[in-house]
């Protein structure tokens, strides 16, 4: 079996072979490291590649396997970790110059759980500076490139994860999502991205984060792999008060169940109001496929979404507070986009912050009402496909929108509401633009109903012509 045969497999395909000792964790890790070394000059998807650590882990896992200690489907699987998730003894920069030499003493809880499940940490992945933006064009560590077109962004802020999973460097990556930072890169790179229910996964060890609505979630090449990753990281953490002590179901159990009789809500307002026609065509096609699979589509109205822009206000103020200790001493080490967008939080009045929290409440209530009428919602992931690196504004519907720095909220308009509501949401690949860039659609479910999202996404994926699509970067020398 060649390295390419190995890296082309999904976790679900590879795990039984590792368990049966047909392929060793060492072999898999060497294949992934070779792919990382080959593509890093093109993608710039890592800040740190952990050659020695990954090899050491792989040898230990190999030895455990020989002793009959199989840890489960992540045993010996190389994954990437976004560089804003703490890793013990390994520098964790958060994509910043400020924390360029920061070495945490403990792993983030989600990282720790992945390791306990047998995953091999291949490296720390590049991201937007301080995970604050949708481009992953990092002023300190360089821009991450999209495997489908190297001149384009991979989305952000978990751009390194999206690029690595898509280009078969990692089998999965742990990203973080405060406004769409897992789902956006998933959509732009043609992979599966999950932001589970707020409270399902511990945020402990997620650095320089917001007080309100951040999540750690997986990027994977398949829905089944997404379920396996969530299985590893889900669960109550007594040291993280945001986690909820609810039972963790078997997330793989719903895969393969029929979709007949399910009801999907197609929002009549907001989500489809501002979007590129090619993206809309792709998403509408995915909706048609779900209908062919027996899902009943219903148009639904979410009136409070006309105030969704106000959700950003709380985020502006939260962000300033999160950055305060660093800005006070290291302003000169910030890139301009993050510096100025963060400082804008100083203008937010307490009265307006309180209003934003109340808007969050009514939007949450509106979604809860709609999700009593239907089982899940379908929306675009992003209003447009990935744009060229270094683009400052994009035109949509005849209006110019900033896509970097202060005021750049348009591109996350479909994903950020689920950070405010806390509802589980998942991005699935559903086609390509004429220029070959991936399009994603988003499924939004009821609280803690990730199994239903997996059921629907798996049903779609099973008939999707895009499920085994390979990015052109794989064929470059």
């Amino acid at each position, binding site marked *: 079996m060649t390295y390419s045969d190995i890296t082309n497999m999904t976790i679900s395909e590879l795990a039984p072979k590792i368990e049966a000792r047909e392929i060793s964790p060492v072999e898999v890790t060497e294949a992934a490291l070779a792919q990382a070394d080959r593509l890093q000059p093109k993608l710039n998807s890592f800040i740190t590649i952990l050659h020695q650590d990954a090899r050491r882990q792989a040898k230990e896992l190999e030895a455990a396997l020989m002793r009959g200690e199989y840890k489960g489907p992540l045993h010996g699987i190389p994954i990437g970790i976004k560089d804003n998730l703490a890793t013990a003894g390994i520098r964790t920069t958060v994509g910043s110059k400020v924390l360029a030499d920061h070495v945490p003493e403990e792993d983030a809880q989600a990282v720790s759980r992945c390791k306990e499940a047998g995953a091999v940490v291949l490296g720390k992945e590049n991201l937007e500076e301080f995970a604050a933006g949708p481009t992953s064009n990092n002023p300190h560590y360089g821009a991450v490139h999209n495997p489908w077109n190297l001149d384009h962004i991979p989305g952000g802020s978990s751009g390194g994860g999206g690029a690595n999973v898509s280009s078969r460097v990692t089998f999965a990556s742990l990203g973080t999502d405060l406004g769409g930072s897992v789902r956006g890169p998933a959509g732009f790179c043609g992979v599966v991205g999950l932001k589970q229910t707020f409270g399902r996964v511990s945020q402990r060890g997620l650095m320089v984060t917001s007080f309100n609505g951040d999540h750690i979630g997986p990027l994977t090449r398949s829905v089944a792999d997404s379920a396996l990753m969530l299985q590893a990281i889900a669960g109550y953490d007594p040291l993280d008060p945001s986690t909820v002590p609810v039972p963790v179901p078997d997330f793989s159990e719903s895969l393969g169940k029929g979709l007949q009789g399910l009801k999907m809500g197609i929002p009549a307002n907001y989500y489809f109001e501002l979007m590129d026609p090619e993206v809309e065509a792709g998403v509408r096609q995915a909706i048609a496929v779900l209908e062919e699979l027996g899902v009943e589509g219903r148009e639904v109205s979410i009136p409070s979404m006309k105030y969704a822009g106000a959700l950003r206000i709380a985020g502006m103020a939260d962000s300033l507070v999160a950055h305060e200790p660093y800005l006070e001493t290291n302003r000169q080490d910030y890139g301009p986009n993050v510096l*100025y967008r963060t*400082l804008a939080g*100083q203008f937010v009045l307490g009265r*307006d912050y309180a*209003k934003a929290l109340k808007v969050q409440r009514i939007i*949450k209530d509106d979604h809860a009402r709609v999700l009593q009428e239907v089982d899940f919602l379908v929306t675009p992931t992003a209003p447009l496909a990935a744009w060229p690196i270094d683009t400052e504004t994009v035109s949509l519907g005849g209006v110019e929108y900033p896509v970097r720095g202060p005021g750049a909220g348009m591109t996350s308009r479909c994903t950020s509401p689920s950070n405010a509501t806390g509802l589980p949401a998942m991005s699935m690949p559903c086609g390509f633009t004429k220029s070959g860039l991936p399009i994603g659609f988003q499924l939004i479910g009821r609280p803690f109903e990730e199994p239903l999202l997996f059921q629907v996404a798996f049903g779609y994926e099973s008939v999707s012509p895009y499920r085994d699509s390979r990015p052109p970067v794989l064929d470059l020398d």
Partner: protein
Amino acid sequence: MAITKDTLKAMIREFHGMELSDEELDIVAPALDSYLAEIENLRELDLSNVMSGRILRAQEGGKPG
């Protein structure tokens, strides 16, 4: 923008004495404009009776150990 640059500079200065030039304020402006537009959009909305979504789980209370 109805707020003068001097006022904005004074507001920023409240944050650890940070100074912003006119050019830097122009860069921040899109975020401020967006914020003010959203607040204007909320003007028609009565938020006075929106219930809090805070919950306290039973096991978080109890007697001190």
